[in-house]
């Protein structure tokens, strides 16, 4: 019996949220009174397995197979299915990455289980484990009770603090996966990036970022003026870039840039998690939004509930006064 943390790598590089999943697995294992094991899989993963063994885990299960070199849902699902069948863990914990979103639910379905995705906290109660999830893009929370074993859980980026390797030198247990080429239906091509980014928002000291609340492209002038007054870079949440109102390279969030300015103004941005992961490292966050329940206020240092079309121009004027 154990809790299995599934670590994610691509091309020999860790996805850093893997170790947050490991931390979550430790919490769950503690509550259940069982040890934690970690699974690493891919092709030529010896170094990664050794690195994983540096964390406080009972063992590292390493599945090395040529057909696991590139990610495919069929290959990864088959490999983990075999590992889980053999180990019979109480729970399997993943980082909630795009890759896990692609195969985690498929794997859980194979075991007839619900994949409890995007979990932000774990509560141990007498009646069992409660997994905390966000609903409505973070506007509400829910305690979910998963039944049966194993439980399949993915954890949101940033929700659990990754631990440090302890140089414990845990055992590495090679696992032989049986996999044939015809089991894999998808033919992945090499990943690529669209274009060189000409705007590097990660270096900006002050960012004025705008979301759906701006309503129309013509209204962008309001925030552009504030950015000008502050000498700030202009950025946006995804819907604004999807609409073509601002170029994609100005998008902040999980599919855009990650920023950490001294001040981040979130204007008319509700604060969906996909946006928050890209900006929560900012030193000071100011949120202006008409909805007092907008999740952005959870992350903000200063919040203004009100009409951005009144507040933003007043703020630009005030800034100009200060700088004059």
């Amino acid at each position, binding site marked *: 019996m154990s809790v299995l943390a599934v670590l994610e790598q691509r091309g020999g590089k860790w996805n850093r949220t893997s170790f947050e999943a490991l931390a979550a697995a430790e919490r769950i294992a503690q509550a259940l009174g069982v040890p934690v094991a970690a699974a690493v899989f891919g092709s030529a993963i010896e170094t990664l397995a050794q690195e994983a063994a540096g964390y406080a885990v009972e063992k590292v299960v390493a599945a090395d197979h040529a057909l696991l070199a590139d990610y495919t849902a069929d290959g990864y699902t088959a490999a983990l299915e075999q590992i889980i069948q053999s180990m019979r863990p109480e729970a399997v914990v993943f980082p909630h990455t795009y890759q896990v979103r692609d195969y985690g639910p498929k794997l859980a379905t194979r075991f007839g289980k619900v994949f409890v995705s995007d979990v932000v906290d774990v509560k141990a109660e007498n009646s069992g484990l409660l997994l905390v999830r966000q609903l409505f893009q973070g506007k509400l929370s829910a305690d979910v009770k998963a039944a049966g074993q194993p439980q399949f859980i993915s954890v949101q980026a940033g929700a659990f603090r990754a631990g440090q390797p302890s140089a414990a030198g845990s055992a590495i247990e090679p696992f032989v996966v049986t996999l044939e080429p015809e089991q894999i239906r998808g033919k992945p091509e090499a990943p690529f990036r669209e274009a060189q980014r000409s705007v590097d928002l990660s270096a900006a000291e002050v960012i004025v970022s705008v979301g759906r609340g701006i309503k129309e492209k013509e209204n962008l002038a309001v925030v552009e003026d504030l950015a000008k007054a502050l000498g700030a870079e202009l950025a946006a949440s995804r819907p604004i870039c999807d609409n073509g109102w601002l170029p994609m390279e100005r998008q902040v969030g999980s599919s855009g840039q990650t920023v950490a300015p001294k001040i981040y103004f979130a204007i008319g941005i509700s604060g969906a998690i996909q946006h928050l992961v890209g900006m929560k490292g900012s*030193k000071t966050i100011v949120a202006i939004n008409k909805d007092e329940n907008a999740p952005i206020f959870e992350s903000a240092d200063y919040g203004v509930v009100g009409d951005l079309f009144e507040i933003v121009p007043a703020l630009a004027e005030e800034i100009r006064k200060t700088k004059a």
Partner: protein
Amino acid sequence: MKIIVSVKQVAARDSALRVNGAGTWLDESDLSYEMNEPDAYALEEALQLKEKLGGEVIAMCAGPARATQTIREALAKGADRAIHIEIAEEGVLDALTTARLLAAAAGPESPDFVLTGLQSDDLGYGQTGVVLAELLGYSHATIVMEVEPQGKMVRVKRELEDGWFQNVVLPLPVVLTIQSGIKKLRYATLMGIKKAKTKEVKTVSARDLGVELAGQAGMERVYLPVRAKQTQILSGDAKQVAHQLVEKLKFEARVL
């Protein structure tokens, strides 16, 4: 080509959400509803695929009686017919149970493509499409930006994290979960709305489909999030707020 598009009806984006008395779900009494936004993009992609390849688009929706409004919208925009899996029960189903219903309804149609949004705006499990593919034994791809049919195969552009993309070639039948914002959404025309009234909507129940509604991952409690950070909320008229904010940024946070 036969294309099924699975759409969900969710509480409208600007709704004031209130938890019900029992703390188990929302107080639904004065909520308004709309088509889940990512599903609207899946519908658009389905309609464009049909324009390219011919065939038919079937809108599929699991939900209570009120979901007929979302089904009508899909038909008005150009879906040829619809399947409504009517669920009488209050509250919500877990992702696996929902996918079992959808799979039982979609399977007998033997579609070439099943499209759906990458996630729902309400529960946000982001997995219905993937589970559906596994239950149907179809191949799948998630967070799809572009769909390029190639005979019995399809090449899709998937979004990865941090600005990366990847093309994947998959055999049909396939389930694709579509990213929001990839195309411009069409509006229903007056003619479309009129025509929708004459289109076939097949209503089936969970019982008809032979699916047990008792789920496993139940929500024990729904509540407003606990604030993790001490947020200072400034109030007053716009001018006062602007003044206060600049003072705080200068002298308290010392970032200006």
